[in-house]
């Protein structure tokens, strides 16, 4: 996965973080989320992960089913 770095900013540290980014030569335009928005993003991520796991469970079930039914029966 590509790197994602979060900056947690409040009234007290906003200037320090701006200065830090400025010092690194990064254009100081930030994309912000509230605590609630961040929580929702995390929850959405978790939902997608759950969906991937569900799909994997289905694929595994099909695989097991066909393996079981491909076994030749004794006459």
């Amino acid at each position: 996965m590509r790197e994602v770095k979060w900056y947690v900013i409040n009234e007290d540290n906003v200037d320090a973080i701006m200065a830090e980014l400025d010092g690194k030569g990064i254009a100081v335009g930030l994309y912000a989320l509230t605590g609630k928005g961040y929580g929702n993003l995390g929850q959405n991520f978790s939902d997608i992960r759950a969906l991937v796991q569900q799909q994997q469970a289905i694929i595994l079930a099909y695989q097991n089913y066909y393996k079981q039914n491909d076994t030749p029966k004794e006459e």
Partner: protein
Amino acid sequence: MKLSLILLLIIALMGFSGYVYYTETQKTITILNENNAKLEVAIQSSEDALESLQGNIKAMQEENDRINKEYANIRKQNGLLASKLERLDLGAAAVVNPDGIGKAVNLGTINAGRCFEILSGSELTEYERNAENAKIFNKECPWLWPGPNPSGVSGGEPTETD
């Protein structure tokens, strides 16, 4: 003399009728036997097909039960984050401890991304292989921990401590 001739004719006619009846009956018996043999083959085929279908249905039910169990686990796993978020006020936490929260969310993001990689078939890193428990393995998806001697990734039931 005339009566004898008539009797002889009647006897001959009866004999002929008996012969015809016998041969026709034998033919019918042969046909019925052949039909019976065909029916026995058809019944055997039907029984084989029925047995095969019953086997398929049983296998399908087993897999369905397994999927339902797996889905229940996945729902539990997915609910863990929701209940964690309910207990936390991330906005307030960011006001009080921005550095700590910043470290936590960055680590959480890395771990969550790693969960996707593992689910997509990525090989475990040395750190993950040597993890002594599920929490050390990955805090965001500890249920993917394959155990102390990993031979593959499988989802398990989450615990309250996950």
